[in-house]
């Protein structure tokens, strides 16, 4: 049961250390005790066994896609 699922944050409760995330249309409450960074609705998290294990940096995803466009246009 080693499955990571990405989800978009829709609600954060720092005091109680949880967030509601939405993945593929399903909302779930996940623990955020392992996340050091600030969280706001709209952030993306990687969730594993009920806990977020990392915050997804969308800028890096964009860079990755741009790199591909360069490689693909290089001929």
């Amino acid at each position: 049961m080693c499955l990571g699922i990405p989800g978009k944050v829709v609600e954060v409760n720092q005091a109680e250390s949880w967030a509601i995330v939405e993945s593929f249309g399903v909302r779930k409450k996940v623990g955020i005790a392992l996340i050091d960074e600030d969280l706001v609705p709209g952030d993306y998290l990687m969730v594993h066994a009920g806990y977020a294990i990392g915050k997804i940096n969308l800028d890096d995803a964009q860079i990755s896609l741009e790199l591909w466009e360069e490689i693909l246009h290089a001929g």
Partner: protein
Amino acid sequence: MLDKLRDPELGKRILSKLAPLAQEVAGRLGRPAILMEVCGTHTMAIARSGLRSLLAGSLELRSGPGCPVCVTGQGDIDRIIALAASRPDLVIGTFGDMLRVSGTNSSLEQERARGAQVEIFYSPAEAVTFAAGHPQNEVVFLGVGFETTAPAVALSVAVARSRGLKNYSVLSVHKLVPPVLENLLSDPELKIDGLLLPGHVCTVTGRKAFDFVANKFNVPAVVAGFEPIDLMEAIYLLLKQIVSGRAETVNGYPRLVREDGNNKAKEIMKEYFKPVNVYWRGFGMVPQSGLALQESLSFYDAAVRFPVEVSESVPPKGCACGDVLKGKIASSDCPLFARRCTPLQPVGPCMVSTEGACAAYYQYEWSKAEV
């Protein structure tokens, strides 16, 4: 944005670059390049993507020791089943894929049918909530998983402690990925040209924890994500290294993986667990590759509170799961595959867990024409 990483059109365009590169590498090697992944989620993602058949002939993708249930030693499986069988007063909490794994004589599913209490939880947090709501029950959660799961299990013990629960404990058979890769890469019989590193384990450990793959063993390695475009990118980066004769441990999943990983997760793992020698299916004993609860936490340690002895443990007869986990053979090379061993009637754990190499191959790629 993340949807773009699943875009079939982009995938096709990338494949038009990837396929000739794979052919070039195969031409140089005089055989298809062999790349290995070591993560159950990769096993499933690769099977679903269809990449294996799209690159067949020039590239071989193998699964390694990446499915936690599959790599759990037969002795540990037997101890878990014996605990459920001998202590029907306990509630055994587990992730779902452990239920049907065969021990030497039984399975958790069979013991449940005979009256053992087995509850399936998606998260250890659910197990500890269950324990809080059922003070009359003693709940034992089976801690099965790698660096991705161990911090969550440690947190469940932290919650039990802070809430003063007396009826929650953990049976830890957690395992660590770097030590088993050391073991795997030290095997002179192993022939792999590159490693796809497990993106979510690396989210916790950090990229640097896998520098040894390139530095010590001279094997190219790329931390890989799980969307189809991520997988193609990681394969592309590995093939580029092979072509140029380089070996580096590269981060192909920077949107999640940092150099040093997730410090909070690493700290809580260190606080709650200590590394111990454990047995892996297919590998035998791998030094310092398992996690046991710290001695100061023995009150939450089911191995201390409810010890069980089992006699000799024997893997299922004819099952080649151990060789599949070492990447020595492909699932379809096993004589039992799709004949005596299917997801409906699995013989070994690699066919039980949906993340197992055999189950994923059967589900997504295998066609009856091959038999």
